[in-house]
């Protein structure tokens, strides 16, 4: 009985698909794609893109590994992505860099007579904080005259959300959760302010593009039109469109506002010395857990996440605040950091299973398990601000990973006093005893360290049960 399983999201492209066998990921290339694959490899394009770190590298394996041998031309094994993330979890600059990478790949390909046949944001993943194309079968032979078939997809997946985030509100990055194939251009056009019609790139690629789509939506008689269309865009015309998209996106910016979290580390309780001691304690606990992977929950701009990533531990830094995630990403870029992936995530409403049959894009929990979860300066936001009982919080963290490093912030702490300032204190159970008792049902408490200059305590816990999903 074969343990080969096709990935739920890999079904649209007849050129091939991704499947797994015994936890190893393979891509089957079908016979129909043989010429284009030969072109990709033989023209030098593959090598050029891999050298520039724009395309995931792969090795060819025996064809007997194919899932469907009647269709198979080749089977390849691509390098692994440490953590799969989705465009609605990326900060502004992450989406912008993913867009620019796609255009760079397109320009490089066109020099070799090759073109991208799709331009989905889901084809880009981040490795060591750099965007990289993971769909090796995105390429096909370029026929001069034919317009870019993926132009609409590029505008929906990249230009529309970026312009909404830049000109209206950063929260529009989350709109792509609702539209599996990018944001509809007529919707984006309606939401964008009128002043964007003075921006030539936005005018052309969003507003007029949307109008053209509406105008031709019901065109049934295509035969004569096809002749004209497939001669309509010369190579230099194509390059000028790509160039226009590139300069339009390069000019899109997001002015970082002052949110309550942006200035976080300058308004906390700690002296420099105490902060350094806390960092040392957290680092010790991370190493004690022997983690090879870490999720830092409520990571802010990643100060403590780096205590893991600097040891070569694959680390994801989640935070609800787009400003914090943006600052974290920009820092990763500037310092060429490795092993760290900043992402936007609301822990009270994390990414869910979406797409067809609710199984194309995975929920946060379905992208676990991780070795160690970090929950520093977080418990009071979940338990008090969000009224979550301790046992629910414990079970959620246990469903994420095996070890938990958590900081309990008591009511005597000034941060909790702020949270309770404007509301009735109904949290009788919010004490050290209540916390240890509730978490003690799910975890074994292995270490307990008080934090200097505060009433807070740091814990290292190990999950009791190995088969935990949230419902258990």
């Amino acid at each position, binding site marked *: 009985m074969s343990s080969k399983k096709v990935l739920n999201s890999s079904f649209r492209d007849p050129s091939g698909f991704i499947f797994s066998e015994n936890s190893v990921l393979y891509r089957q290339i079908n016979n129909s794609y043989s010429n284009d694959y030969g072109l990709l490899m033989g023209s030098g394009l593959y090598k050029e893109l891999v050298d520039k770190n724009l395309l995931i590298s792969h090795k060819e394996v025996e064809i007997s590994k194919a899932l469907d041998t009647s269709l198979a031309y080749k089977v390849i094994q691509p390098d692994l992505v440490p953590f799969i993330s989705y465009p609605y979890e990326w900060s502004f600059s992450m989406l912008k860099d993913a867009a620019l990478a796609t255009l760079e790949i397109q320009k490089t390909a066109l020099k070799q007579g090759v073109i991208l046949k799709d331009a989905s944001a889901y084809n880009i993943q981040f490795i060591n904080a750099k965007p990289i194309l993971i769909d090796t079968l995105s390429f096909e032979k370029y026929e001069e005259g034919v317009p870019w*078939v993926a132009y609409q997809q590029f505008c929906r997946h990249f230009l529309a959300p970026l312009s909404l985030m830049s000109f209206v509100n950063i929260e529009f990055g989350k709109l792509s959760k609702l539209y599996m194939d990018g944001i509809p251009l007529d919707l984006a056009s309606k939401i964008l302010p009128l002043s964007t019609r003075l921006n030539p790139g936005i005018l052309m690629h969003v507003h007029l593009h949307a109008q053209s789509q509406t105008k031709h*939506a019901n065109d049934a008689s295509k035969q004569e039109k096809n002749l004209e269309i497939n001669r*309509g*865009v*010369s190579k230099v015309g194509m390059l*000028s469109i790509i160039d226009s998209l590139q300069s339009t996106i390069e000019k899109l910016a997001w002015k970082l506002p002052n949110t309550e979290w942006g200035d976080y580390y300058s308004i906390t309780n700690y002296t420099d010395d105490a902060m350094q001691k806390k960092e040392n304690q957290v680092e010790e606990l991370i190493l004690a857990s022997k983690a090879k992977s870490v999720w830092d929950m409520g990571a802010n701009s990643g100060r403590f996440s780096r205590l893991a990533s600097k040891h070569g531990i694959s680390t994801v830094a989640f935070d609800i605040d787009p400003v914090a995630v943006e600052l974290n990403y920009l820092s990763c870029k500037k310092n060429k950091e490795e092993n760290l992936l900043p992402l936007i995530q609301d822990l009270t409403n994390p990414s869910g299973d979406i797409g067809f049959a609710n199984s194309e894009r995975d929920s946060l929990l379905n992208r676990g398990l991780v070795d160690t979860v970090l929950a520093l300066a977080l418990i009071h936001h979940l338990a008090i601000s969000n009224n979550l009982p301790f046992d629910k919080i414990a079970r959620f963290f246990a469903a994420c990973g095996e070890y938990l490093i958590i900081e309990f912030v008591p009511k005597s702490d000034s941060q909790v006093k702020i949270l309770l300032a404007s509301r009735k204190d109904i949290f009788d159970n919010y004490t050290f005893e209540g916390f240890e008792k509730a978490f003690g049902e799910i975890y074994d408490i292995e270490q307990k360290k008080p934090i200097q200059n505060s009433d807070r305590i740091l814990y290292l816990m190990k999950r009791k049960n190995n088969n935990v999903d949230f419902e258990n």
Partner: protein
Amino acid sequence: MIEKISIFLIFAVLVGRTAHAYIDPGTGSMMIQIISAFLLTGIFTMKLWVKNVKHFFTKKPKDTINNEQQESSK
């Protein structure tokens, strides 16, 4: 007659193209590209031309030195 045959042949050839394009490009999106390409090609070509001119002028002093060296070695 010849016109009809040649249109048929062009069509027959074109139908075979973009065989792997599995996504729907959208007629409206194709049409707007034709218009955009028409409007943008001029600006793009100018950009390239300006780039080449700049490149030409930054290369020039080196060329002159090379020429002088060649003259003096004759």
